[in-house]
């Protein structure tokens, strides 16, 4: 009898331990860490939760790298990883934090805007895409980076409904889009984790008086949006000037303007609701091509990662140059890299990282 009781106690104890472990695993997931090595250009590292304390300790919190120039100017917010599987934006932001120097104005860099999405790749668009990718530095050191997901991890917020209604516009999307940061803007401080991330970004833009916001994305190789610069209508002239400048260098980008019928996207909502001029850049990622099995998301010769990062960074430069021309020096932002951006073309991206 005593032995049976002991056995039962042991089973209960073991069950409790398992339950406790599972609960801890769920609740102890804070923000995912990434291999970002801030360079001399970074003056401060803040957190997104500084703009919405409710995010602190959640998988949605993420570092913000602050680069201040020696001369007064405007403020740029650079977003990578809104969709964490669109790695050219993540790596362009990472390279920016590691190597860029700001000479005028301030740049706020968030390499993993949706840090929950960055934790794991669930194979959206292509189930054979990797969980990680590697870049080799000049020293031979191999650096490893997450290949994340398009959306917030399902376990990080309440289960998806059949339909996600964008509460600000009434637009209806598929239920899993409730976890898509770029359908949740302008967010909700009391909403889902994804809505809170969006809300915090809006609070950041307002509190830091952001003048220019650039959200870096990727599409498939053959997608309609591959190699496109999208802007809010208020920024259409800057985008046009930038595109024509880039074309003269042989870099061909399509131009699109935010739709009046499609809400929840960064370029639409930040443009409508803040003073920032928002842009969205789309490079072409073979990992988002459903027909390619085990895509090489780094070295595919059709669109190597280094070329995609070049496209993102060179477009940012062109936007900033023409922003200064059209909006005046008071809000201009000047950046510099210790190498020619064109050196990235066809190169090993790893040698440019710290």
């Amino acid at each position, binding site marked *: 009898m005593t032995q049976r009781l002991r056995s039962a106690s042991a089973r209960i104890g073991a069950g409790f331990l398992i339950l406790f472990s599972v609960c801890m695993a769920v609740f102890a997931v804070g923000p995912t860490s990434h291999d970002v090595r801030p360079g001399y250009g970074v003056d401060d590292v803040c957190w997104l939760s500084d703009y919405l304390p409710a995010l602190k300790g959640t998988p949605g919190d993420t570092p913000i790298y602050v680069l201040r120039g020696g001369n007064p100017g405007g403020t740029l917010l650079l977003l990578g990883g809104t969709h964490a599987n669109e790695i050219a934006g993540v790596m362009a932001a990472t390279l920016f934090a590691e190597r860029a120097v700001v000479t005028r104005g301030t740049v706020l860099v968030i390499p993993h805007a949706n840090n929950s999405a960055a934790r794991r790749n669930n194979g959206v668009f292509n189930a054979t895409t990797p969980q990680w990718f590697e870049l080799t530095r000049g020293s031979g050191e191999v650096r490893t980076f997450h290949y994340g997901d398009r959306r917030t991890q399902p376990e990080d917020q309440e289960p998806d409904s059949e339909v996600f209604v964008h509460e600000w516009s009434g637009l209806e999307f598929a239920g899993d889009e409730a976890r898509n940061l770029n359908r949740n803007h302008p967010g909700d401080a009391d909403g889902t984790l994804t809505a809170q991330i969006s809300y915090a970004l809006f609070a950041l833009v307002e509190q830091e008086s952001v003048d220019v916001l650039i959200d870096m994305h990727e599409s498939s190789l053959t997608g309609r949006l591959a*190699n496109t610069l999208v802007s809010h*209508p208020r920024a*259409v*002239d800057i*985008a*046009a*000037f930038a*595109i*024509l400048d880039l*074309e*003269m260098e*042989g870099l*061909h980008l*399509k*131009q*699109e*303007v*935010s*739709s*009046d*019928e*499609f809400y929840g996207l960064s370029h639409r909502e930040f443009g409508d609701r803040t003073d920032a001029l928002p842009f969205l850049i789309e490079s072409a990622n073979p990992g988002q091509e459903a027909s390619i099995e085990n895509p090489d998301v780094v070295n595919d010769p059709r669109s190597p990662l280094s070329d995609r990062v070049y496209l993102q960074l060179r477009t940012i430069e062109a936007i900033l140059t023409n922003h200064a021309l059209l909006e005046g020096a008071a809000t201009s932002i000047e950046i510099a890299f210790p190498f020619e951006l064109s050196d990235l073309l066809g190169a090993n991206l790893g040698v440019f990282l710290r």
Partner: protein
Amino acid sequence: MEGLPLRSNIHCNRRGEAAAVALHGKREMPMKHGRRTWGIAVLLILALGLAAVAQEEVQTESMTFTQPALITSIGQSAGAAQARVVALKAGLEATYMQRATLEDLEGSSTLIVVLGASSKGLGAAGVDIDGEITWATELFDKARELEIRIIAMHIEGGSRRGPSSDLTITTFAPLADYLIVKGSMPDTEWTADEAANGNADGLFTTIAGENEIPIAYIEATLGAVDVLIELFDIQPEG
């Protein structure tokens, strides 16, 4: 800015060959009247020199566009915004209205339409492609009524081709007085990005030839700057 005088273009037009090469731009003037006109012109030159000069002047005049211009989009793509930049760089006095009204035509001497459909742009304007065609037809009719000459541009390359874009092209390019297309000339290798070639299938060449419309081919959108400088005879400031 480089580029041959307009009169030279007209001269080349009579041979039905590429007429001039500008910075990033190649022009072709299809035969407006064919070889027979060439022969007639030669006879006229031989017989009546002054009359031949007059003929040249008439043709030259026919290729001159006057300021101010109104720039608008047919298909509501972002190309019209790029055309505005082009006009600005050319020093052209122009007003940009993404979707111009008939009233906007008043006071304009030239209408510059940028062809190419965008579903986003059409959505923003609250119309579908059929509604766009109806509106643009009215715009062209009004321009004709006001004796406003029309330049049609397609400057967004192959990515701005497709059923809806092609509908704007096939409907309105034949009605223009001049075409500017970012795309390859016939029998000429396209060296830029293939996605930037708006004339890979020769659609614009066909339209220009069938309708006897002069056409300028450009390799980059900013190549249209020199074309506009020449067409509007814009003199450099200072």
